[in-house]
């Protein structure tokens, strides 16, 4: 029986690692996705962790998950439901089963299903599989803790340290299931624990033990799987999360513009990793200040911008509320500034570790007065790099604050990223003063065409000037209370932002004859494209358009949205993009698909909803 094991070729597979917050599921998932990407698979990951600081061990609220989607070709989302669920304890099995396909393979650590574990996970009977209606044939029931202890008995490690290696055993098992090369795992671990070689070797030993266990006992599963890489784009790649990509985009932009990067920030989930990442890279000239509050994060960045840096502030929705007065100072001062809003569950503190797109209208309108501000929404973890780079480029070339919207889903999720080169990135030319202006420079003198003012950096002789929150005379730069001047300045600031050139909206799919156009913005890109592809596979004519540039809107917006019989706007809020588009496109009457669950869209649900619209 064992020798007859079948190896199935799959196009794609979703694996979900789950366990206690302290079980190291994120690391196991990360290694699995990196190793898969290394062999050329498409990857997309989604960490799903609890908001509890540290829920009691083994409890239902303390379960942390990490989902990895790997594919032979490109994958756009972390996947709806998983094909393999790793549940390190009873609570994980109970809470995570809903993310598994009905026929999914489940790996459990039977040592973590004792009476106390079952009680903590609120099982009524010892028959936990029966209680959850799980077919035992689908379950690899492994005494994982016992095996790890046996494996490391001679290692000299204490019990606590040994138990921390359980995740590596689970990883080994999954690697066996998917025919992953353990050498790649070993390389990763040796790199990660470069300073602690003993730990690296012990972990590698446990991974091997997990792999061997799978190999020796595989009668309990019907097949192992192989995912070949089909659509390789040659090049050099790394795995990157959205937050890291955002940080990298800002670093690259500062270097391209020849400026220091300054980040003023206050810790806030899920944006803090941007601060963490940037604070590491002082050798690239990056300055980070962990401020006393959100206001100071933005205010210090404005000061740094005034002093001549590429300035940014990173936060999430509640932080944007606090920063908004200072953001408006950057609007009236016309200073370059990037405000990164990693959206999360809201209002107020909301479900802070979950993901939503509910800050769109706040980004567009959440300030006093006429306060035009460009808004860019990143499409995916890797697109965070391009979006952050673009945001910085617009800020510096058009002397304006720019809001970059990402969200918890793409900020924490990761994907394989083809490395850019500095030469390949667009030039960034800050709109500096010219030598001819020396001696008679006024801060609100503008380029006639673009309406962009000129940037003079303190330290330059002959350009001293004052900026401020009070309305200024457009010609002299002096305080002005003249009604005509104020009206004029409001219009100029709006015109300046409206004139920023942005790329046209791209239409994917049946762009000429679609019966339905699926529209979204930002991070839902992957799910909406996947839904479109599934509908096409069912024989429908559908197209998809995703807004990355929300303000100003692409020039062809009205043309695209008016072209199709039916338009559905799908977003993770109650209709904010729909509101914005209806205000900007005459006669647009879209269908809407809205969810605010804090979880990514489920492609199957999208397909069903769009199918219903198509049938209407």
């Amino acid at each position, binding site marked *: 029986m064992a020798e007859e094991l079948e190896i199935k070729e799959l196009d794609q597979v979703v694996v979900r690692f789950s366990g206690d917050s302290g079980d190291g599921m994120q690391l196991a998932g990360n290694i699995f996705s*990196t190793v898969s*990407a*290394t062999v*050329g698979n498409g990857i997309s990951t989604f960490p799903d962790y609890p908001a509890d600081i540290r829920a009691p061990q083994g409890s239902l609220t303390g379960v942390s998950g990490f989902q990895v989607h790997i594919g032979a070709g490109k994958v756009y989302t972390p996947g709806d439901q998983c094909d393999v669920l790793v549940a390190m304890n009873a609570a994980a099995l109970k809470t995570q089963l809903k993310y598994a396909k009905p026929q999914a393979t489940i790996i459990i650590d039977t040592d973590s299903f004792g009476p106390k574990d079952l009680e903590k996970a609120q099982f009524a009977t010892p028959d936990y599989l029966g209680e959850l209606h799980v077919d035992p044939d689908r379950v690899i029931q492994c005494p994982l803790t016992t095996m790890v202890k046996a494996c490391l008995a001679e290692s000299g490690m204490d019990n606590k340290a040994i138990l921390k290696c359980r995740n590596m055993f689970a990883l080994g098992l999954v690697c066996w299931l998917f025919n992953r090369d353990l050498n790649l795992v070993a390389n*990763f671990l040796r790199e990660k624990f470069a300073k602690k070689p003993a730990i690296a070797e012990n972990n590698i030993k446990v991974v091997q033990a997990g792999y061997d266990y799978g190999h020796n006992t595989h009668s309990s599963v019907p097949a192992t799987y192989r995912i070949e*890489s089909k659509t*390789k*784009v*040659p*090049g*050099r*790649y*790394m795995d*990157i999360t959205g937050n890291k990509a955002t940080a*990298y985009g800002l*670093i*690259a932009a500062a*270097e391209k513009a020849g400026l220091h990067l*300054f980040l*003023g920030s206050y810790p806030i989930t899920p944006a803090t990793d941007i601060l963490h990442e940037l604070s590491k*890279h*002082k*050798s*690239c*000239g990056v*300055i980070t*200040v962990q*401020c*006393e*509050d959100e*206001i*100071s994060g933005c*205010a*210090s*960045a*404005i*000061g*740094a*911008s*005034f*002093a*001549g*840096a590429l*300035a940014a502030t990173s936060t999430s929705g509640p932080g944007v509320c606090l920063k908004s*007065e*200072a953001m408006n*100072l950057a609007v009236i001062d016309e200073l370059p500034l990037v405000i990164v809003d990693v959206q999360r569950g809201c209002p107020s503190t909301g479900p802070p570790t979950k993901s939503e797109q509910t800050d769109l209208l706040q980004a567009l309108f959440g300030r006093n007065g006429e306060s035009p501000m460009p808004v860019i929404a990143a499409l995916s973890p890797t697109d965070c790099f391009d979006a952050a780079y673009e945001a910085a480029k617009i800020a510096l070339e058009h002397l304006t604050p720019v809001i970059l919207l990402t969200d918890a889903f793409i900020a924490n999720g990761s994907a394989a990223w083809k490395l850019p080169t*500095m030469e390949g990135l667009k030039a960034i030319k800050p709109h500096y003063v010219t030598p001819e202006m020396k001696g008679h420079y006024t801060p609100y003198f503008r380029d006639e065409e673009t309406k962009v003012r000129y940037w003079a950096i*303190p*330290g330059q002789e*002959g350009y*001293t*000037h*004052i*900026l*401020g*929150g*009070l309305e200024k005379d457009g010609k002299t730069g*002096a*305080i002005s209370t003249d009604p005509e001047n104020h009206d004029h300045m409001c219009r100029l600031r709006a015109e300046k932002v409206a004139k920023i050139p942005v790329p046209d909206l791209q239409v994917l799919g049946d762009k000429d004859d679609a019966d339905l156009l699926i529209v979204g913005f930002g991070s839902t890109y992957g799910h909406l494209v996947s839904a479109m592809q599934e509908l096409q596979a069912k024989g429908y004519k559908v197209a998809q358009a995703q807004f990355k540039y929300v303000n100003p809107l692409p020039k062809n917006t009205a043309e695209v949205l008016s072209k199709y019989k039916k338009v559905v706007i799908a977003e993770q809020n109650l209709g904010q993009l729909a509101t914005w588009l209806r205000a900007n496109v005459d006669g647009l009457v879209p269908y809407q698909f809205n969810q605010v669950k804090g979880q990514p869209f489920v492609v199957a649900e999208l397909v069903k909803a769009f199918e219903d619209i198509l049938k209407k």
Partner: protein
Amino acid sequence: MSEYTFQDYKKGQPRWCPGCGDHFFLASLHKAMAEVGVAPHNMAVISGIGCSSRLPYYVNTYAMQTIHGRAAAIATGAKVANPDLCIWQVSGDGDGLAIGGNHFIHAMRRNIDLNMILLNNRIYGLTKGQYSPTSPRGFVSKSSPYGTVEDPFRPAELCFGARGHFFARSVATDAAETQDILKAAYQHKGAAVCEILQNCVIFNDGCHESVYTKEGRKKNAIYVRHGEKLVFGENNEFGLVQEGFGLKVVKIGENGYTLDDVLVHDAHCEDNTLQLKLAMMSNENGFPIALGVIRDVDAPTYDESVHVQLDEVSKQKKYHNFAELLETNDIWEVK
């Protein structure tokens, strides 16, 4: 000798009320700027909101008049990003200690090299007469018609509590002393708070009356000078001595007290206990008001430390640009 005169730093026509203490202070600031000799284009004046925060409009340097309370935070970013700039951060008592209190204390704690001017008239003037966080208990104003029921901040106490390393005080009308403390603040590397006692002729006239004139200061103030005896009075006939846990005013030559008993001011003493005692003296408690540089202690500044760390890390790390940074990651090649 500076190559600049105060005229080089003057700009515009101030719009404050006639007699406002801000006029006096501005003139002293122009003169102090000329004396320290930093070129106008290497200076920045950054303020918040309020009467006194209009000041940057009257200075021919780089300048920002920002939003209420945030001047210290904005100045922090400017100084850290560009440490070569000489920054004067100007706030009033409402701007600096109420809405901007958080930024004020953290600028102190971090020790950003800023010259922080606190123009204290114990009232909100621009909004036409509400009590401020430095108004005394029982103060009657438009927003406290029956008197306030709260105690005020003492700026010095807040500064010391936030681990400040420089605190000086002057009266706006006392041009010579004001210029001296401004120059001392410029010389001091780190957050240097200058409290300027300033009259509001419209909404809080007479708030610093006892020391507002030269004659008044002779009786009611003491000029503290590092390394010198703490004596005061028209003929320096009074002195400060330590008694128990506090200070005491004595008449030299009476009750057995001689000049030898009088304390010598030590602005450089790390321990701020006696400096705080000096700063907290008030006429109400039978003490003279201390003017001059009360505390001036060297300490590492945040902005300099940031750049020292940038250099140190740059030496340790093998990557110094974006392309090199990319190479620090786990990279694989797809052929």
